């Protein structure tokens, strides 16, 4: 680097910074929409939410006490129907599974404990590899992407 280069770089680094008018900040802030302070901004919605939760809970408890038999009937009917639906779903899935062409060979392969362990281990490794691959796919690029398109 020549003496002139050095002198230019030194002079560039020592160039003064300039200040705007003393009223600059006031001028800026006069034209900025300052949000309401957080406490004032969030007080009303929070209070309204809390009040509605308390009122709902109270109304619900009162109605339940006054209509106990009807409520029990609904719960029993709902739980019986849910149980039937879940059991039916399990049976459908199991039937479909056993009807698959690969099911019998797989069951025969896994009939000995050693091979069962091998199968489980292989499945776990495959699952972990799939997770790693998915994570790589979903990771955003490491280089920051400029975002202010003003």
């Amino acid at each position, binding site marked *: 680097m020549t003496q002139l280069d050095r*002198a230019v770089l030194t002079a560039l680094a020592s160039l003064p910074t300039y200040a*705007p008018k003393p009223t600059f900040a006031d001028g800026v802030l006069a034209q*900025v929409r300052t*949000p309401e302070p957080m406490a004032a901004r969030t007080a009303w919605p929070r209070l309204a939410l809390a009040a509605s939760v308390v009122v709902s809970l109270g109304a619900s408890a009162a109605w339940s006490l006054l209509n106990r038999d009807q409520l029990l009937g609904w719960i029993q009917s709902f739980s019986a129907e849910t149980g039937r639906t879940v059991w039916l779903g399990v049976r459908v899935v199991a039937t479909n599974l056993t009807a698959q062409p690969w099911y019998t060979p797989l069951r025969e392969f896994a009939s000995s404990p050693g091979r069962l362990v091998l199968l489980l281990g292989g499945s776990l490794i495959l699952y972990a590899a799939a997770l790693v691959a998915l994570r790589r796919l979903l990771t955003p690029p490491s280089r920051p992407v400029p975002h*202010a398109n*003003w």
Partner: protein
Amino acid sequence: MAEAPLPPDLKSATDQQVVTQARKGSETAYRELVRRYERPVFSLVFRMVRNRELAEDLAQETFIKVLNALDSYRPEFKFSSWVFKIANNAAIDHLRRRELDTLSIEGSPHAETPQMIEATALQLGERGETALEAVENKELGGEIERAIAKLRPEYRSCILLRHVEGRAYEEIADILNLPLGTVKTYIHRARNELRITLAHLKP
């Protein structure tokens, strides 16, 4: 992720902490952000457009944009980069709108007659000189200010951000939305042009 505790004195807080406070509606935090960046932003814009009033307007416009858009600021980016990006874009947009007339020391590139060239040329050292022009009249500092003014706006942004503001190449690339290689080339060329312009100062 948990926020870092805010120092009792806002002046020693990081930009991110001050921005968080500003988003919560603290006017002190808004004022602190302006205090931190008013000088560097104004200096950059002033050296780009070379007119104090205009630079004040553009710097003000920059801060209004920044502060009104604080909710869209993403903390994974440097706040200073964001501010400089907006300031530089404001200056460049202005120069483009004015088709470089404001800046051309030799006069407008569209001037067709010697009278028009003279009318549109920037008069350095005239009466009623600005602060910038006053500095220009001092030896090397002044020569450099004049030499910077002759650079293309893109080169000028790069050289000012690198050697006056001390920003890293990668940050300049982010600020100017340019590839890193282009930034390095611009800075290299700008230095070459400065060296040529200032060659007469060689001892």
